[in-house]
C-alpha cells in the first residue's frame, strides 16, 4: 500500500500507468469491441480515417485498421511479457549461479554474458526466428535469448553484494542448502532492481518484436503492429494512416512502460533516486 502511494506521487509514472492501462484494456476488450476477425474485410479498401464505417481507416484489403491495432495490442503485450519472463528465467539463474558460487564458475559465466552482449542481438534474433520458423513461441524464445545478459549482470552484482552480509552468512552457518539460502534469503532482497529492469525490458522486447514482424518474421497467424507497418510500406503515398496509427500504438505503449519503469525505480530504489535528486 505504501509502495503504491509512493508510486502515485510520481507524475510521469502515473501518466505511464494510465496509458498502459488503456492499452491493456484495449487488448482485453478487443473481441467485444471488434467482433469480426481482424483479418476479415469489413470496408472498402483504402477508406480514409474518421469518415466512414471505420475509425482509423481501412487497409488495401479493406481490413479495419482500428481492429488490427486492438488485436495487435494483445500480441505485443503477450510477447513483451512472456519474452521478458523467459529472459528473467535465464538471466536470474545465470546471474545467481555466478554471484553465489563466484570464482571459476563466475568467470566462465561472465565471459558468456560478455559474448552475448557483444554480438548484435537483433541479428541473432533474426537468425533464430528465420531458422527455427516464425511461430509465437520461437519469437518469444529468440527475444528472451538476446535480452537476458543485462539481467544476469544485475543479478550477479546483487548476489555478490548480499553474499557477504551477516544474515546470509548466518543462514549458511546454520547448514541451510545453497538453494534455500538463494531462494529464501538472497533473492527476496535482490528483487527490486530486478523488477525495475524487467519492467523496462518489456518495452525493449515489444520494440524487438515489432521490428521482427516488420521484417516479415512475426507469427503469420497473428495480427501485429510491426506487421501492419511493414505491409503499409508499399502504399505509403496513398494511405498514410496505415503506417501512422500502428506506429503511434507502439510508441505510446513503449513510452508508457518506460515511464512506469522509472516510477517503479523511484519507488523501489528510493535511496538511489534520492541521491540522484540531491545531485
Amino acid at each position: 500500500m505504501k509502495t503504491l502511494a509512493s508510486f502515485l506521487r510520481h507524475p510521469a509514472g502515473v501518466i505511464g500507468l494510465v496509458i498502459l492501462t488503456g492499452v491493456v484494456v484495449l487488448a482485453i476488450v478487443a473481441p467485444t469491441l471488434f467482433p469480426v476477425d481482424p483479418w476479415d474485410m469489413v470496408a472498402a479498401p483504402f477508406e480514409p480515417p474518421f469518415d466512414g464505417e471505420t475509425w482509423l481507416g481501412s487497409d488495401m484489403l479493406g481490413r479495419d485498421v482500428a481492429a488490427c491495432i486492438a488485436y495487435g495490442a494483445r500480441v505485443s503485450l503477450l510477447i513483451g511479457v512472456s519474452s521478458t519472463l523467459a529472459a528473467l528465467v535465464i538471466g536470474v539463474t545465470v546471474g545467481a549461479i555466478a554471484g553465489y558460487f563466484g570464482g571459476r564458475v563466475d568467470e566462465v559465466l561472465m565471459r558468456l554474458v560478455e559474448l552475448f552482449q557483444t554480438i548484435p542481438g537483433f541479428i541473432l534474433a533474426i537468425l533464430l526466428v528465420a531458422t527455427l520458423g516464425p511461430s509465437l513461441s520461437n519469437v518469444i524464445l529468440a527475444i528472451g535469448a538476446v535480452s537476458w545478459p543485462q539481467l544476469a549482470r544485475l543479478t550477479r552484482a546483487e548476489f555478490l553484494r548480499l553474499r557477504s552480509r551477516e544474515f546470509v552468512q548466518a543462514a549458511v552457518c546454520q547448514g541451510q542448502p545453497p538453494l534455500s539460502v538463494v531462494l529464501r534469503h538472497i533473492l527476496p532482497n535482490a528483487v527490486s532492481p530486478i523488477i525495475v529492469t524487467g519492467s523496462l525490458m518489456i518495452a525493449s522486447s515489444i520494440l524487438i518484436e515489432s521490428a521482427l514482424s516488420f521484417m516479415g518474421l512475426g507469427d503469420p497467424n497473428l495480427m501485429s503492429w510491426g506487421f501492419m507497418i511493414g505491409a503499409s510500406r508499399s502504399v505509403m503515398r496513398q494511405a498514410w494512416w496505415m503506417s501512422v496509427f500502428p506506429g503511434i500504438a507502439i510508441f505510446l505503449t513503449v513510452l508508457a512502460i518506460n515511464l512506469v519503469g522509472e516510477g517503479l525505480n523511484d519507488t523501489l530504489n528510493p535511496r538511489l533516486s534520492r541521491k540522484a535528486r540531491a545531485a
Partner: protein
Amino acid sequence: MSVVAITRYGGRLSAYVLGIASGAVKIIGVILVIATFNFILVHAAPGDPAQVIAGQSGAADETLLRQVRSAYGLDQPYLVQLASSLKKTLTLDLGYSYRQQRTVLSLLLERLPATLLLTGTAFILSLVLGTALGTIAGTRAGKWSDTFFTIVSLLLYALPVFWLGLMLVLLFSVQLNWLPPFGYVTVGVEMTTWQRIADIAWHMVLPTLSLAAVYLAIYARLMRSSIIEVKQQDFIKTARAKGVTESRIVMHHLLRNAILPVITVAGMQAGGVVGGAVVVETVFAWPGLGRLIYDAVLQRDYPVMQGIFLVMSVVVIGLNLLTEAVYRMVDPRISVRSVT
C-alpha cells in the same frame, strides 16, 4: 631523452601492442564461437540441413542437394563437420549462396562499405549530438531547456527505429519533397566525384537521422546525469575557487570527466546500432548488409544470413575496441597516473 621518458614511452608502446593483441584474440574467439553457433543452428533447424543450406529454391533439386551434402561434408560425423566448418570460417570461406549463385564472402564485401558508412556516421553523430545536448541540459539542470531536452530524449527513446524512418520519409520526401526517400545514389545521372559524394551524403541524411535518434536520446540522458554528478565534485569547486573561467571549467574539467560513462555505454550499445542498421537499411533500400539480410530472410538464404551475423559481430567488436581506445585517450586519470 631521460630514463623516465623512455620507460614511459616504452610502457605506452607495450600497452598498445598488448591492446592490439588482446583485440585480435577477442575477434578470433568470437568468430569461432559464432561459427560453432551457426553450425548448431543449421542442424537444429527443422528439416534436412542440406535443404536448409540450399534454400527454398534448391530444396527440390536432388542433384543440388547431393552437391551441397558433399561440399559441406554432411555425411561425416558431427565433430568432423564442425572442425571443417571452423577451419573454413578462419580462412574466410563463408560458404556459397545457392540463391545468388555467388560466394557469400564476395557478396558481403560488396555490401560492407555502405553499412560501415551508415553505422559509422550514425554512431559518431549520436555520440557528438547526444553529449552536446546532455551537456546543455546538465549544466542548466532545472531550467526550461533541461526539461525540454529531457522530455525530447524520453520521447525519442520510445520510437521504433523503422517507424521513425518511415515517418521521416512521409514528411521530408512525400510531403515536402526535400530529400530522397530511398537508395544510395541517384541512378542514371552522369556525375563528377564531388557531385557523387554530395549525392550520397544527400541520400544519407534520413537513414542516418533515423538510426542516430534513439542512441542520441540514450547518450543525452546519460551525459546529463553524468554532468550533474561531476558538477558536485570537489575538484570543480576547487577550480572555481581558483578563479578558472566557467567555459574552461566546462571544457577541461567537467566534459572530460563526465563523458567517460557515455563512452563506456556507447561501446556497449555498438551491437544495438549495428542491429538498428538492419531495419533502417530495409526501410531506405540502403544497399548494405542490413538490406542483404532482409532479402536473405525472404529467400531463406541461410549461408548469407550466417555470414552477415559473423561479419556484423566483427564490426561490433571493432567499434568496441575503438571506444576502448577513445576512453583511454580521454580519461584524465590515465595521464595523471603516467606522470606520477
